[in-house]
């Protein structure tokens, strides 16, 4: 079923061990242990400033650990040559910069950089590049945009192009920092469907930070909930998304029901001005 992980044991290629990350004089992620299940979709959720983006940046070796380590195939990722890591592990940051005057095919082609030798392109590499770029464009349904300027595209199209760039990199692992930000709900679902297909068809291990808890519960195989830089719950969405965990992590009064479409947990927030109907809860709250 899953070519990268035929036995389904989910052994980890990427893991964090006793990882502490921070900026200036504050620790943002504290002594965190995480094994990223291989060939699965892992989603990191948490309130604003809980350290989820920092954790992703740490896993992508953009931040040097204060202590502990990020291990790729058992080796400290910071000690591996960065270009070698880039052939195994891809990253789509939250706000990549679109250079002026760049076309879709050109931008996606830049994802091939880690596969180039120290003195640039040879004929064979160029063919491989074109093949990989074409595949990425077809997968993300952006082939017909190939010669368009990226800064002329709509937000949804542009995000698909950036994903295509990360796909062209051809890595087994892909980290994404809030890939659905700035997208409307239809484009969010389209984007996550695309990533789910990618995981199913190529067996790409995906780790992403998402804001929307319900979409996270729907698309994650493995869900990680962070609070103040520590993991408070980890496991399948059904194990993690409970009323108690959501209350702890987000400080939000809530009900969890069954998602009628995907049968994953669905969080329904209880606002201050919403009277809670009796059947959903035995205790009537009147805050």
């Amino acid at each position: 079923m899953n070519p990268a992980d035929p036995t389904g044991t989910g052994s980890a290629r990427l893991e964090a061990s006793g990882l502490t990350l921070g900026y200036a004089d504050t620790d943002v992620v504290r002594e965190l242990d995480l094994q990223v299940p291989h060939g699965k979709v892992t989603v990191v959720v948490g309130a604003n400033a809980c350290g989820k983006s920092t954790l992703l940046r740490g896993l992508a070796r953009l931040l040097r650990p204060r202590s502990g380590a990020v291990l790729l195939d058992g080796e400290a990722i910071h000690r591996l040559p960065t270009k070698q890591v880039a052939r195994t592990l891809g990253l789509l940051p939250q706000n990549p910069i679109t250079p002026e005057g760049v076309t879709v095919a050109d931008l996606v082609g830049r994802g091939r950089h880690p596969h180039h030798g120290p003195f640039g392109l040879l004929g064979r590499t160029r063919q491989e590049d074109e093949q990989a770029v074409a595949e990425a464009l077809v997968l993300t349904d952006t082939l017909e945009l190939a010669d368009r300027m990226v800064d002329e595209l709509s937000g949804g199209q542009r995000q698909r192009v950036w994903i295509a760039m990360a796909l062209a990199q051809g890595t087994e692992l892909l980290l994404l920092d809030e890939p659905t930000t700035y997208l409307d709900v239809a484009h969010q679902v389209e984007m996550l469907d695309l990533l789910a297909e990618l995981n199913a068809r190529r067996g790409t291990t995906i780790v992403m930070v998402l804001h929307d808890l319900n979409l996270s519960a729907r698309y994650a195989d493995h869900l990680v909930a962070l609070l103040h830089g520590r993991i408070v719950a980890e496991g399948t969405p059904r194990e993690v998304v409970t009323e108690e965990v959501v209350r702890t992590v987000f400080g939000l009064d809530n009900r969890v029901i069954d998602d009628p479409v995907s049968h994953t947990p669905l969080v329904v927030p209880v606002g201050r001005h919403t009277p809670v109907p009796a059947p959903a809860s035995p205790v009537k709250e009147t805050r």
Partner: protein
Amino acid sequence: MSLTLERRQAPTAPDAVEVVRRARRAPRLHHRRLVAGLVLALVGAFAVRVLLGDYTVTIPDFVRILGGEQIPGATYIVMESKLPRAVLAVLVGVAFGVGGAIFQTTLRNPLASPDIVGVSLGASAAAVSAIALAGWSGWSVSAAAVAGALGVALLVRAVAGDHGGFRLVLAGIGLAAAMQSVIQYVFTRVDEWDVQLVLRWLTGSVNGVAWAGIGLLAVALAVLLPATAWAARSLPVSELGDDAAAGLGVGRTRTELLMLLGVLLVAVGVAAAGPVAFVAFLSGPIARALNRGRTTLPAAGLVGAVIVLVGDHIGAYAVPDLNLPVGVVTGAFGAPFLLWLLARGPRHALRGRRAA
């Protein structure tokens, strides 16, 4: 989902590869044509500079002079004035054009060019101090210029921190003013100086430079330009921002190496001809506009060479009996462009995100 999956699995691969090949070829072809066109323009400007002017030299005469033949009058004018000026103009134009474009591209801000943020004037202040106060010459002047340029670059970065944009530009303009006063101070300390010499170190000039100085610059560029070509291969990736670049295996050290090469290019150019005003600032954006908005270092270098050649020709012959240094001419053309960039506002001109 199954529907889209089937469609996506359809064996369209050869077609798709062809679409990609065509889409990727178009900008490459355009760039190649642009570089070829600029080389032609450069050859034309070079011929005009060397052959025309107050004293016209025919092409056969020019070839004979290069062959070592002595033609009364003509040999001296070509070998001691016109040719060295033209060759130096090309070399400093390339150095400033490429150096400026490196700054503007890595800092993502057209205003962050070395002649605006004080790096050129820092090189000039150090070079003129070395010559006038310490009596240095040759390689040691270039070394002083490099030290001055590096010093200003590091200082700007220390002041602006990790912020590009306005803070970097303002810090640079402040340091540029300080460097200018250093140069003026040096002139008050020497006994013998003339207007031409002052103008050289304040605004740049390709006039009256010996072949030895030109040879020095040529050797420096023969090392720096190939190194830049090698280091700049990661530029298309660095352009995507620090995080995306790091994800693609291009770390900050690569970008910093490129910046260092930019500083060196500007410094050796200044050591030979002074801080020719606004050439570094103008070349990158002009080359980019000609290349449909895309970054190009080779075209920036060629544009720089054409600007300095044409500027020197105008300076030499526009006003009768007055030999204006090239920096006065480029300064006159560059200032309106600077104002225009500033008037266009922060959205375009100042979207730099971090300092060097």
